[in-house]
């Protein structure tokens, strides 16, 4: 079968799988966040930590809970890495150095999973399982909680309560992340992903020498890495490693896993606001964007210029097991969600395809975005779009029955502002430092793309690396660490404030003068706003990086 046809069939199969899960998973998640009943294990947990599960929280309380929880998570994860020599199953791998430990702790708690370390050399099984995997689950649950709070802001009226963070976190963990990850892990095991607590296996190479090939409890980590749109691999090669991603089937399954929760989240939204078309229209914006970026990258990668053009395609940096189409499919999906797992080296993509993965993140990761936060991102864009559109039809702008006034616009503006600020200032600062030039493996436009990509990935909590940039210097460890922190928590604060402000409002009744938001025109509006804002913000930076490369 020819590569393109196989690729198209895989895309089709992926879409069918997602469509099948859309309604059941979406509605299930809606029930999780609206149900009055606690599971027994949850009730026990609430008693243990003395949380009154029945009480709602104001947004500042909710936010304090979230920030406090995340702060403690970072500290614990940092300590775990620093104290590694004392832990079992550490295989003699020593204490992680402070800058790297900080970067990694922040990275996993912010759902970024940027990895400045080589996992199989630096971390033992205890830190992997008790530290990273736990944060993979919890950081995704935090994302779901934020989305639930924002949706409640739209659903509720005349109240200052947006839910209970501890309840949302617990339910997202117990009822969504854990069961899904378990199922996914079983699936991956069946497909041949390894699972072992041994430090490694000795193999005799063709040259007669004996090599120790590291092993890890891969399948369990791999599952939550994808389902929680985390992306941090247990091996440095990430999903290109045969122990993490052995076959075309497991590859497709992984792509499905990272897309399924963000996609179904739009259904959750539609169900919770009582109009499912509201969700499907947002999904269609995400879908069109994903499809368009996939098409561009696919085309660029199969029509390379230069030396690679002489071969039948740009295979540099790709696994022959996957080939071009599925590598691109993986690349577009991992940068469109906040996953950041990779099965190919984005650095080696052609200018066009590399630019697509970069642009995908710079759009704010909404195609379809990270667990929970993808929906949040597109809702914020929808608010900006509806603000302008509302003015253009001569009414105080509103969305889903809530007026978009000073507070709402301020929150949305902060949300829109923070990510570009981090990316542009970070990349600008980094490229001005002489030390950066040493850290780059390429010069010219491509070198700049590498730096821009690193900050885009960190600020958007993606975690994928373009590669080619050595990020172990103290500057990059801390700058990217801060980028991840601000990119995650300033945005979350803005969203929670937005949720609080929306929930306080009374509901405005829809009339014929109200703009409908479940029709294609609205989709065009949101998509257009999204692209225009990102294009205008990043056009100059992109011109000096991938654009200069692609047009050359």
């Amino acid at each position, binding site marked *: 079968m020819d590569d393109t046809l196989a690729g198209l069939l895989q895309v089709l199969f992926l879409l069918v799988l997602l469509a099948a899960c859309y309604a059941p998973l979406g509605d299930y998640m809606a029930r999780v966040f609206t149900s009055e009943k606690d599971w027994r294990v949850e009730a026990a947990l609430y008693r243990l930590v003395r949380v009154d599960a029945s009480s709602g929280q104001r947004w500042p309380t909710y936010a304090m809970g979230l920030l406090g929880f995340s702060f403690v998570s970072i500290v614990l994860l940092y300590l775990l890495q620093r104290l590694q020599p004392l832990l079992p199953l550490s295989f003699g791998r020593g204490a992680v150095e402070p800058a790297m430990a900080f970067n990694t702790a922040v990275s996993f708690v912010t759902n970024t999973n940027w990895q400045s370390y080589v996992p199989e050399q630096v971390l033992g099984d205890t830190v992997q399982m008790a530290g990273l995997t736990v944060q993979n689950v919890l950081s995704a649950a935090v994302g779901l909680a934020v989305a639930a709070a924002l949706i409640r802001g739209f659903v509720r009226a005349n109240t200052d309560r947006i839910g209970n963070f501890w309840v949302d976190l617990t339910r997202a963990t117990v009822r969504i992340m854990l069961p899904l990850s378990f199922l996914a892990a079983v699936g991956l095991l069946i497909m041949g992903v390894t699972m072992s607590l041994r430090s490694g296996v000795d193999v005799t190479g063709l040259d007669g020498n004996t090599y120790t090939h590291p092993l890890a409890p891969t399948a369990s980590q791999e599952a939550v890495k994808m389902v929680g749109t985390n992306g941090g691999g247990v091996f440095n090669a990430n999903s290109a490693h045969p122990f993490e991603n052995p076959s075309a089937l497991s590859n497709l399954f992984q792509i499905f896993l990272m897309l399924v929760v963000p996609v179904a989240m739009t259904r959750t939204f539609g169900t919770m606001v009582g109009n499912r078309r509201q969700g499907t229209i947002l999904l269609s914006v995400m879908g069109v964007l994903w499809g368009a970026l996939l098409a561009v990258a696919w085309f660029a990668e199969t029509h390379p210029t230069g030396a690679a053009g002489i071969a039948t395609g740009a295979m540099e940096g790709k696994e022959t097991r996957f080939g071009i189409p599925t590598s691109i499919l993986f690349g577009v999906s991992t940068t469109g969600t906040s996953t950041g797992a990779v099965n190919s080296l984005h650095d080696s993509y052609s200018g066009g395809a590399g630019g697509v993965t970069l642009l995908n993140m710079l759009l704010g990761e909404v195609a379809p975005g990270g667990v929970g936060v993808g929906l949040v991102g597109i809702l914020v864009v929808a608010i*900006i779009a509806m*603000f*302008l*559109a*509302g*003015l*253009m*039809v*001569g*009414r*105080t*702008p509103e969305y889903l029955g809530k007026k*978009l*006034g*000073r507070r*709402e*616009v301020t929150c949305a*503006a902060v949300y*829109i*502002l923070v990510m*570009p*600020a981090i990316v*542009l*200032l970070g*990349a*600008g*600062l980094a*490229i*001005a430092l002489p030390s950066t030039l040493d850290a780059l493996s390429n010069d*010219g*436009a491509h070198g*700049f793309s590498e730096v821009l990509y690193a900050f885009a990935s960190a600020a958007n909590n993606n975690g994928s690396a373009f590669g080619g940039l050595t990020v172990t210097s103290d500057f990059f460890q801390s700058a990217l660490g801060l980028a991840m922190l601000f990119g995650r928590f300033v945005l979350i604060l803005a969203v929670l404030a937005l949720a609080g402000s929306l929930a306080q409002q*009374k*509901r*405005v*009744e829809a*009339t*014929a*003068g109200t*703009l*409908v938001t479940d*029709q294609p*025109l609205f989709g065009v*509006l949101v998509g*257009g706003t999204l692209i*225009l804002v990102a*294009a*205008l*913000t*990043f*056009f*100059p*930076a992109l*011109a*000096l990086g991938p*654009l*200069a*490369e692609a*047009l*050359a």
Partner: protein
Amino acid sequence: MTTTLDRPVESAGAPVKAGAFRPAQLWASLPDALRKLHPKAQLRNPVMFVVWVGSVLVTLDAIVSPSLFGWLLAIWLWFTVLFANLAEAVAEGRGKAQAETLRRTKRDTVARLVDGTTKGGTELEIGDRVVVVAGETIPGDGDVVEGIATVDESAITGESAPVVREAGGDRSSVTGGTTVLSDRIVVEITTKPGESFVDRMIALVEGASRQKTPNEIALTILLAALTVIFLLAVVALQPMSAYAGGPQSVVVLVALLVCLIPTTIGALLSAIGIAGMDRLVQRNVLAKSGRAVEAAGDIDTLLLDKTGTITFGNRRATELIPVGDATVVELAEAARLSSLADQTPEGRSVVELCTTEYGLAPEASAEEARAEFVPFTAQTRVSGLDIGGRRVRKGAAQTLLAATGVRSDEVERWVQLISDEGGTPLVVADGERVLGLIRLSDVVKPGIAERFAELRAMGIRTVMVTGDNPRTARAIAARAGVDDHIAEATPEDKLAYIVAEQEGGRLVAMTGDGTNDAPALAQADVGVAMNTGTAAAKEAGNMVDLDSDPTKLIEIVEIGKQLLITRGALTTFSVANDLAKYFAILPAMFAALYPSLGLLNVMGLHSPQSAILSAVVFNALIIVVLIPLALRGVRYRPSSASALLRRNLLVYGLGGVVTPFLGIFLIDLLVRLIPGM
């Protein structure tokens, strides 16, 4: 009152004589615009302040290292700031002209108090009672507490016909500056001098007390955020460009920044707001705050008084129905006779009907004029004429039938039917012989049903408020095409209705004039008090209509919408413009570093310098070009939200993307002629 729906109601965007924009206004406002170059004035507007700072930087740079390009750029950047000032100054200038007209009413007068002492008009206090006699000017706003007088209010309303103002009732309010034409009244002052409606409006249109409205604040925040994003993008560009091998000059970076930040809307924003108030004043409506004007655009429910708004003020004869063996001509002749001497509006309308439909003489003949007139009284409820032994009468069915002793099932059936249809039946009899009936009905103003259909398309519900009984109210409501009606309405009913609507999340507008309307006017999101109404009503509402035309509510809603649409459309246009500017400036900046980026120069601009200068010139000129639009407001046609959005997205979104490509290309054709470009 002449403003009725007989004439097509002007769309809010239609040119009004006083509102037409003349280029000469630009020249006239130039001194004010120059004065606004002061940094303190610029700080009010974050977007333009950034341009101002940029202009200073580029000027300094041009002084330190002079070049033609640098100076041209500096000059055009200052033009950008100046044009923004000009937009605001023109709007304010027009406002000042309006204010001047209003102020003319505030001539200083001497007030004569009831106790015989005198006070200057500006020293009056609330509660003072002043005496005004024919020929004198009323010294301040107040209520007539004694007497009745005709008053010339043309100074504020422009309406030359004098109006009657009397103590008690709903026509007791008088405005300072108007002149008493006859009789003597005692006025109790209800507003402190300097705080009257006119004073507030003067302050508003002059821009002195202009406060940003909620939507304006939200928009300013969004524009500020965009400005910050672009500022960061440009600042970060410098190290990136340096890495690529060529740091940019400050001049070029400032040019890029100014082109990117939303200067078009930033420059026009306050002009749009002032012009919105201005359009209201042109329609003789005074608003207490800009917030009220904005709220008008959001109105979901309009409470409209039936009389005067939906129907003509009085009932009119619309049909003659003969009964028994009488012919319609016989009936018409008798009906005319019975009404000849009847000077009530209803009576006159009967004669009119007989004249127009049946060709009878409109005037009484000599004989008819001598006949004895039987006037209508509350007791008899019958009027008519005794002429040549004939006793022609018309009147309420019950009374007349009882008086004539005739019983007719046919008549009773008609009476029932006419009442059911919302009309009032009058029976006509000649002696003992019942000839037939006259149908008096409320005549719904022509075009009003279409108007309500338009409102419905805009998402606005119309509610008719009337004192009529439910049956009549229902019939008229059906004919006028309102969405709901309140029959036998008391002021309490109105208030309750408004509260219920608001609890359902809807915004309500209403008009009112009586003191007992005051609570409802205050409760409504937009309460328009009639100028003829009481001071309490005017105080409670947030607008006053000097023409006392309840239909104007619809125009007010349109003006509110137009204000928001203009802001939204120009913001969209402004942001959409950026795309072309990128295509002009980025290749100019980077083509030397990465020749491949020269491909972005899709407009084929002459040189990097001419490209940058052309973009800056376009950016400045577009402000001037759009000033008339900002002042006039974007054309508004009542239609559904989706249709409006589609149209405005097409015109201002897509248009905003395309226009600058053309504009910059054309400007570049000229700029390249400058030597050295």
